């Protein structure tokens, strides 16, 4: 693992050398499918800019030299404007700019496309460390404390050539999940899930940085993503592999929380969705609920919101009931585990994808 020796990061660099090994002049190595798209647009704009820049500077230097003042009252040209040139140098840039926009927009939406076989990753950012958990695999990569500097670094693992969807949230302030080698970045906003989907292609280890200023150790909120080929990934998944073992080994981690916080006291989990005090939770994920704020699809955001701030969208028919607010009492991990438990009730496999409730009213 990335052992940090006494004099700082110099050694650490050796462990991550290949991040820059086959990097192009401008960009780090292309380690995801999005990387090739971004780099092709980057090169297109780069060569367009270089071309125009050279043309403009050549014109400037030539004019400055050719028309330099040779005699005190040297006569100068009376030309004031020229409609043809002015039209050309307005229209041509406009067309080129629209092309760049369209290309950029198309690749941008690729980040929000979530194929059904994507591996789901739940990333929680808090002041100065990342915690990456795998809801489907019941594994959780927690930060390791560096004995010398006291800062935390997290290493997590991904299978090559399989899309993964990151579901980002933050415990305190804004952070931003950035893997330069994958060309992906998204802010972690408290109280909300944001995310993207990308497919790592080249096995290796790559940097993870926090790109949104978040306080003292903003520059030490580092991490490493290890992209594994097929058999390494299988080894990682195997029982005896110690990496990112969930400390609460019991698979029913969510179930135990459900009991611990007394959810069972008001919500039934049986198939008949019996009403104890609050609505039954069996088969709730994905179902359309009519609530005080209109019809809402019960996706992750809705579940999270209802757990932590119940009064925001009360299911119709339960107006009188007041569910206590769990704001600040549950950590992100626990909320994530509870949501997975509720989703697992009816064997409803995880629909993945960055869950923002597309309100349909």
């Amino acid at each position, binding site marked *: 693992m990335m052992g940090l020796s006494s004099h700082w990061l110099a050694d650490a*660099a050796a462990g991550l050398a290949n991040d820059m090994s086959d990097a192009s002049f401008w960009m780090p190595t292309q380690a995801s499918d999005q990387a090739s798209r971004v780099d092709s647009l980057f090169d297109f704009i780069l060569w367009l800019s270089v071309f125009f820049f050279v043309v403009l500077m050549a014109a400037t230097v030539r004019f400055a030299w050719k028309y330099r*003042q040779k005699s005190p009252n*040297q*006569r100068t*040209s009376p030309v004031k404007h020229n409609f043809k040139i002015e039209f050309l140098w307005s229209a041509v840039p406009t067309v080129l700019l629209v092309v760049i926009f369209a290309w*950029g927009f198309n690749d941008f939406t690729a980040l929000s496309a979530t194929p059904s076989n994507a591996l789901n990753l739940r990333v929680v950012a808090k002041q100065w460390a990342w915690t990456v958990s795998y809801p489907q695999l019941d594994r959780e990569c927690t930060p390791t404390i560096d004995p010398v500097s006291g800062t935390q670094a997290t290493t997590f693992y991904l299978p090559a050539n399989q899309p993964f969807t990151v579901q980002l949230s933050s415990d305190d*302030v804004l952070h931003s999940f950035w893997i330069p080698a994958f060309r992906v970045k998204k802010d972690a906003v408290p109280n909300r899930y944001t995310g993207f989907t990308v497919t790592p292609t080249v096995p290796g280890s790559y940097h993870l940085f926090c790109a949104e200023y978040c306080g003292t150790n*903003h520059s030490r909120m580092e991490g490493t993503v290890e992209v594994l080929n097929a058999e390494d990934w299988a080894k990682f998944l195997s029982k005896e592999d110690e990496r990112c073992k969930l400390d609460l080994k019991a698979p029913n981690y969510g179930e135990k929380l459900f009991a611990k916080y007394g959810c069972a006291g008001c919500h039934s989990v049986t198939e008949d969705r019996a009403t104890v005090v609050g609505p039954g939770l069996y088969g709730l994920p994905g179902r359309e609920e009519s609530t005080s704020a209109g019809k809402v699809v019960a996706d992750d955001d809705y579940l999270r919101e209802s757990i932590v701030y119940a009064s925001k969208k009360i299911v119709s028919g339960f107006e009188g009931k007041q569910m206590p607010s769990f704001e*600040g009492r549950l950590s992100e991990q626990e909320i994530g585990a509870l949501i997975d438990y509720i989703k697992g009730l009816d064997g409803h496999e995880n629909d993945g994808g960055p869950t923002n409730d597309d309100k349909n009213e």
Partner: protein
Amino acid sequence: MATTTVEGVEHGHGHAHEVDFYKESHGLKSWLFTLDHKRIGIMYLVGTLTAFMIAGILALIFRAELLTPQIDLLVNAANPNFQEAASLGRDLYNKLFTLHGALMVFVFIIPVVPAALGNFFLPLMLGAKDVAFPRLNLLSFYIWVLGTAILAVAVLAGQLDTGWTFYTPYSTTKGVGPVVLANLGAFVLGFSSILTGVNFIVTVHKMRAPGMTWNRMPLFIWALYATAVIQVLATPVLAITLLLLVAENVFNIGIFNPAMGGDPVLFQHFFWFYSHPAVYIMILPAFGIISEVISVHAKKHIFGYKAIALSSVAIAIISFLVWGHHMFVSGQSEFAGALFSFLTFAVAVPTAIKVFSWIATLYGGSITLNTPMLYGLMFLFTFTIGGLTGLFLGALSTDVQLHDSYFVVAHFHYVMMGGNVIALLAALHHWYPKMFGRMYNETHGKIGAALVMIGFNLTFFSQFMMGSRGMARRYAEYQPEFQPYHIASTIGAFILGLGLFFTLFYLVRGLFKGKKVGANPWGAVSLEWATQSPPIMHNFHDTPHVDSDPYNFPEIDHSRATGGHH
């Protein structure tokens, strides 16, 4: 012909060198309570340049810190507890870049060209005796002083470390303390900007010299007018944003606090609705300066006068539609991101038209390569790089990689420093004889320009490369593979610092040792050159009469127009 007016004053019934506005009255009181736009301009110039020097020195300090990958500030053998010293060092780094950002944006770059040079030259170039509201002008200066004082106290005593953007929820976890004080400082500075804007709009509308229609105004005035429009329309929203932030910190009202149901992205909308037009407040006056400098020193009519004038106003309006491109990855909806990206490319077109027009102005000119012209050409070089790198940040997919990286830092320094500061240097040299009645030393000027050119490009071009390769912004420590870039950048920063200090040295020296000059050393034809330098208290003896636009140089050979090719 406007030229007759100029000659009339200079040769015919030229007045003997009268008492200029410096010697009109003496003593500190005459300066501190002056209503004369020229004295207020000088006071602003001294104030803003001092703030620029302080913020520049801060930049050199943390540039030096970044020479090594790990934190060096406050980390030395003295304090045994390494971890505690390192985190204190990182805190200090955060405070340094916050102070650098806040001082540069709010105190220096927004007021410097409009309030310092604009106050001095707007009435002169319009042929007016003074700005419309002289008392309001003085009030705006004292509000600027008050705002700067509050901001300085906030940062020095209160240890502000939120960055100049004050993003919530980090800035609202501080309670009543540095953020509230810094917000009040910025709030007060905003009012100084609004007052200058109101003053300029009314002066341009109501106090032009007889005969000076809108199409006969110098392009510097067009640029200041467009800037004033933005100042008046954007700064109040900054005022209310800061007020909401103060309320958030003091009363915790929760509109930006996610735990209470607010939305941090809403704060970013409020903040950037002001801050993007603010970057056009910073660059539009520079466009005006470059139009003046290039046409005067090429002795040629500006190419495409209407296009440049209208593109200033177009930029002023479109700049209000594009603020979302700062928030592509911040949780803003993809649809809104697409809309803002498209509009961002719309604002690039008028800017490109301006650059093309300036280069076309050089064609067929009689170019004297003195220091103002050198800085003008340098502006074309650095601003074009700044503008073109904006395309990478405007396109959605590349911005995902480049957002909040050193690529962005390099982009806005190329546009702000490469644009505004280089244009300011061009203006200081171009109008130096008019402001002080003496001439700076030309060879010193060229040396200073060379140092600034080398230092600037070395500092910031290396940041482009490390930014796209993964160097994040506002980092006190970084991965070792970025060290070579940082070393190049720091060396460049010190050369740039040397160049700027050298320029300050010879400009101040020129005040006393420079040889005296007449009213029009460059042979320009706009109105400010029609009065003596330094100008008398009431600018003109009798109101000048204008009958053509200020770019009809005597050297222009109109006979060529018929046979001439273009």
